[in-house]
Structure formats: C-alpha cells, structure tokens
C-alpha cells in the first residue's frame, strides 16, 4: 500500500529521530525515493534542525563568562560566611 505525501509529512519528525516502526519506516523510505517534494521537505527540515543546533551560529556576549563567575563568587562567599563549620580567613 503506497503512502500519500500528506501521510509521509506526519512521519517526518519520527523519521528524523529514527523512531518509526520498521514497516512504516520502509514505506516512507520508498516514497522518498520517488517523491522529490517529500524529499525536499525532509532534507530542509533536517537542515533546519542542524542549523538551530549549531553552536557556531550563536555566540556568548563578550565578558559573559567573567560576569557569571564573578557573580557566583560573590554568592559562594556569602554562603561560606553563613557556614560556621567551615571558617574562612577572610571572614569578618
């Protein structure tokens, strides 16, 4: 039984995750071999997922790490001074 395009579209996500049952996966694959529209949908979706997951597209703001660790250091210092069993030299 051949799949129609619109049924193939329902399987795109699971096809990409390789989580379709074997028989359906095979039918989808067969359809893709003969349908350039569905192949283009699959390829473009996959491509978009790769782009959105590509860390190189996004970058950290300059100084992000320094600011984060400085803030954490303040928090850690404050929590240490609340911790009497572990006295620090810099305690006041």
């Amino acid at each position, binding site marked *: 039984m051949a799949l129609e395009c619109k049924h193939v*579209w329902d399987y795109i996500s699971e096809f990409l995750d390789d989580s379709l049952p074997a028989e359906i996966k095979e039918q989808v694959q067969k359809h893709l071999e003969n349908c350039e529209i569905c192949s283009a949908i699959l390829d473009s979706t996959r491509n978009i997922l790769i782009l*959105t997951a590509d860390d190189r597209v996004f970058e950290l703001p300059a100084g992000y790490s320094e600011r984060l660790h400085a803030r954490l250091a303040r928090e850690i210092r404050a929590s240490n001074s609340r911790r009497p069993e572990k006295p620090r030299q810099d305690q006041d």
Partner: protein
Amino acid sequence: MSVAHARPMERDEAQMIAAILAGDSDLYHRLIQPYEFSVYRMALSFVKNEAEAEDVAQEAFLRAFRDLGNFRGESKFSTWLVSIALNEARRRLRRQNTVRMESLDEPPEEGGKVSPALLRDWREIPSEALERRELRALLQKAIEELSPIYREVFVLRDIEELSIEETASALSISISSVKVRLHRARIMLQKDLAPKLKLASPKKGRWLSWH
C-alpha cells in the same frame, strides 16, 4: 566552542557535587563550566535579547547553586540544570506578562495537521554559507514565534538535546505529547524557515542557488 564544551562526560559530577555540598563551594565554578553556553542559548530562545538571556542564565546558575542540595542524582546534572533554567525563563516571561494564554495560542485542532512548505529541491545549507548575523536573526525569530508549548519542547529536545523521555519529565507532560508537539514545532519551523533560508543572502560569491 572549544573551551566551554569540554566533555562533561569524563568528569565525575556526582563526586564534584558531593564535594561542593561538603564545603568545597569553589568547585561549583568548574562544575558549571561546560554548561555556560547551553544555558545561555536556552535562555536566549525564550527571552527577547542577549542582555536578558544573560540575566536569566545567571539567575539559573545561582538558583542551581542554592538548590544543589536538592539534586538527587536521579537525572543527569545537565538535565536538572536545564529544568532550572527553563523555570527561570518561564518566571521571567510571566513577570513580563508576555506569555499569552496557552489556550489562545494553541491551534484549534490539537490533532490537526501542520503543513510543511513545499519546495521542489533542497540543497543543504551549511551554517558557514550564510551571514552569521542574518542566520541567527532568522532562527531566533522563528523559534520565538512558536507558541510556548511548542517552543519549550523544541528547545529542550532539539537545542538542548535532551531525550524524548527527559523532555517529557522536565515539562511534566507525557511522552506522546512530546512527540506530537515536537513534530508540529519542527514542521512549523520548516514552513517558516525553509523559504526564507533559500532566499537568504549567501556570503559573497560562496553560494549561488535557487532553482
């Protein structure tokens, strides 16, 4: 992303956490280092600008530090951290009142279909092929335009790369809901982005396309 992405797998995070809880608090700096980028990236998917995303990320790391004693080790530290960051982002959105009611957002037919953009052929677009700033703006806008229930699933699964099960548990929804929402999110993104990406301006002379 070389430094920030040092493989966390080779580290014994459970041991680091135990040491931190036993008083070696400074170790927390090292514990979170591999996740600085991913928590920021996640925050950026929810809020409108970089400054806010940084703020949300900082809050998430602080909260995780304060709550570290509640981490039970049933999930990976990274998964736990992601759900804290998610909550922080939600809190921020709620405070801004920018979250619309989900019921209004949700397409009328829950089981209804989302149709993809129909294109005749697709040549893979590597991220280097496009101007980075333009690509970033396109992706960010498209993700931002997803309604919250789809965006959350997409971000956890396809950006933070949680498993379907981890995504379900972080969002307290069923596995089948994750699959349905993920499918719809991906197709909506394809529909929105595929035509735009095909027309996006390639880097000088590197990429001539559209047929």
